[in-house]
């Protein structure tokens, strides 16, 4: 048995095969995720076409400053995640742990800002349901907008929370010295996941926060 046999699971022939399988597996999973969010994007598109005025008006009730800051925070976290993958590839343990920690911190900041926004919406009675505060002829469609707002950002936040869990596991493994130049697949594929969650937000940001600004 050669050394490389120690680094891969029994069903694989070698580490390269195992790496390829994990890499493809994560991409297939992300394809699934595209369709998962795609269902909501479709609903949003249909209603935005039906009720442009209501969507513009409702969108303008979101806090664009916080939204933009959050976009920047998430992009920065993608950057640190990319650096984490690079550190893992180079076998640099300390920078890897630092980058992963930084990514987690930025993710937490994002969630903190997001929940601040949720709280604001709660105070302003913009949460759909019996307590919805808007009235007037546009109120129905505005409630639909806020339903999408909460469903889409909520699903996104859920993915962030799962991502934080995965990053925690990575940090634990990294501290135990599990990753090396030869074996760093988990860092790489969880990196893919994190970037994907970033991409979803890149689309959510203009659709939710920006659609009505020019009509203000």
């Amino acid at each position, binding site marked *: 048995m050669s050394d490389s046999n120690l680094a891969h699971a029994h069903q694989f022939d070698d580490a390269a095969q195992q790496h390829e399988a994990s890499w493809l597996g994560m991409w297939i999973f992300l394809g*699934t995720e595209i369709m998962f969010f795609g*269902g909501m994007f479709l609903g949003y598109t249909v209603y935005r076409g039906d*009720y442009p005025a209501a969507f513009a008006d409702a969108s303008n009730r979101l806090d664009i400053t916080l939204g933009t800051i959050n976009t920047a925070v998430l992009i920065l976290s993608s950057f640190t995640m990319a650096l984490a993958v690079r550190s893992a590839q180079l076998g640099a343990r300390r920078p890897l742990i630092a980058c992963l920690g930084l990514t987690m911190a930025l993710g937490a900041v994002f969630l903190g800002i997001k929940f601040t926004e949720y709280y604001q919406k709660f105070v302003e009675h913009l949460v759909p349901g019996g307590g919805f505060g808007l009235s007037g002829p546009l109120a*129905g*469609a505005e*409630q639909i907008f806020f339903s999408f707002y909460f469903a889409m950002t909520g699903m996104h936040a859920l993915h962030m929370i799962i991502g934080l869990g995965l990053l925690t596991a990575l940090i634990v493994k990294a501290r135990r010295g599990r990753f090396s130049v030869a074996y760093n697949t988990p860092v790489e594929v969880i990196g893919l996941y994190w970037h994907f969650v970033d991409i979803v937000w890149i689309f959510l940001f203009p659709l939710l926060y920006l659609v009505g600004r020019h009509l203000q």
Partner: protein
Amino acid sequence: MNAVIAAPRRHYLNVNYGLKSWLLTTDHKRIAWLYLIGVTFFFFIGGFFATLIRLELLTPQGDLVQAETYNKLFTMHGVTMIFFFLIPSIPAVLGNFLIPIMIGARDLAFPRLNLASWYIYMLGGLFTLAAAAAGGVDTGWTFYTPYSSIYSNTHVALTVVGIFVTGFSSILTGLNFIVTVHTMRAPGMTWFRLPLFVWAHYATSIIFILGTPVIAITLTLVALERLFHLGIFNPELGGDPLLFQHLFWFYSHPAVYIMILPGMGVISELIACFSRKRVFGYSFVAFSSLGIAVLSFLVWGHHMFVSGQSVYASMIFSLLSMLVAIPSAIKVFNWTATLYKGSISFDAPMLYSLGFIGLFTIGGLTGVFLASLGVDVHVHDTYFVIAHFHYIMVGSAVMAYLGGIHFWWPKMTGRKYPEPLARLAAIIIFLGFNLTFFPQFVLGYLGMPRRYHVYPPEFQVLNVMSSAGASILAVGYLLPLIYLIWSLRYGAVAGMNPWKAKGLEWEIPSPPPTDNFETTPLVTQEAYAYGVADAQAVYPSGEPANV
């Protein structure tokens, strides 16, 4: 060696014992058994609901159960049969067992994920059973809004959470299959040497991973609407009642092909083996599987011809629906041509296969009626539709499943099933099935709507015929349950290749060892090398893996 009594050969069943060794196994063959137990359980649960439905419909007055109960019965029948039996049946049992062996691998790419898929499936089933036990759900398996989101007073949220959870099991299984087929084929196992069973499962997996997430998010939104009063489908707020239907059928039409494509894969194997011929037009059959998988996503609107969908969209969907009939027709013709100049034997799996071809032809042709706009307007949401999809899902998919279980039973267990009883059961099922569902075509064209608890008295005779057929069908389904369990202990020892079939799974012992192959095979032949002398894979260390 010959002086002492040889220790029994090690294989995946006797390598270790105890509940824990099964519940924590990562062996794809043992996981297949876990699934087999799960889907069999749900099949009989679903069958129980069907029995009550058919009993109720014996009389037109609706006097056996209350309307509310009846609505719950057909809903739970649909939900259990579709999400917990048909969708996992062939892929998760036979696919799990066979795909790694057929491509010459030791296991799937992600064995632990495979085990997790089974737990997720059972967890989803648990939610749905809990919903049934708590009083059931009455929306129909289609969960149309706004009935499901606002008006129904039953356990919709719990049920859809169950389906959502089970969806993950499908996604992970599909992901596992695709990665395995891409990365773990044995040397020499090129794409065009793959058995058609593997092609069919590859195509099915595409639908698993790209369709399932859409139903997951759609049902999640329905649950959120019920639990947190979001207003995504609510017409009171201006919500579009057709949006849900688009999202639902985007998955649920391709889901029909999730149920039938693996069956087509099974039939290709069986027809080849029992006529000892290479499948006629191998590459056409292989590509028609992929063609079906892609086209299946372009036709969902044919469920919405009378829903208020735009005329133009309906026409596009009708045209595309016609196209999906073509790859199915190609398969039927090729299977039939495979029989030509073959050496045909009539073992039970072959009886199921021949039954499959006939019933699938009828199911497929009646699908053209439904894809045709003018006729669909009349038969939509009637018993014609019920008959059509039961010809596909029961007449075809379940027949293929049973045929496959019989065919690979010796490989899975090392034992033979009792052949005469099995042939009898296959014939009973075929006759019972036709008596149950053929009258429903007539009922449908007469105009009897589906999901009717009370119906006009002139429809009674046909309904009685259907119920009589269902009782025969029930006998047919109970028989294999009994003799297959019996054969586990008393069946004759099968040997490595009882059917004299070709394929890597027949070159290893029955039951196979845990790692399937002692040395990785080197494939030098096309699939179904019947009539080719000594066609088998090369095993580099010299011997094939048999002992």
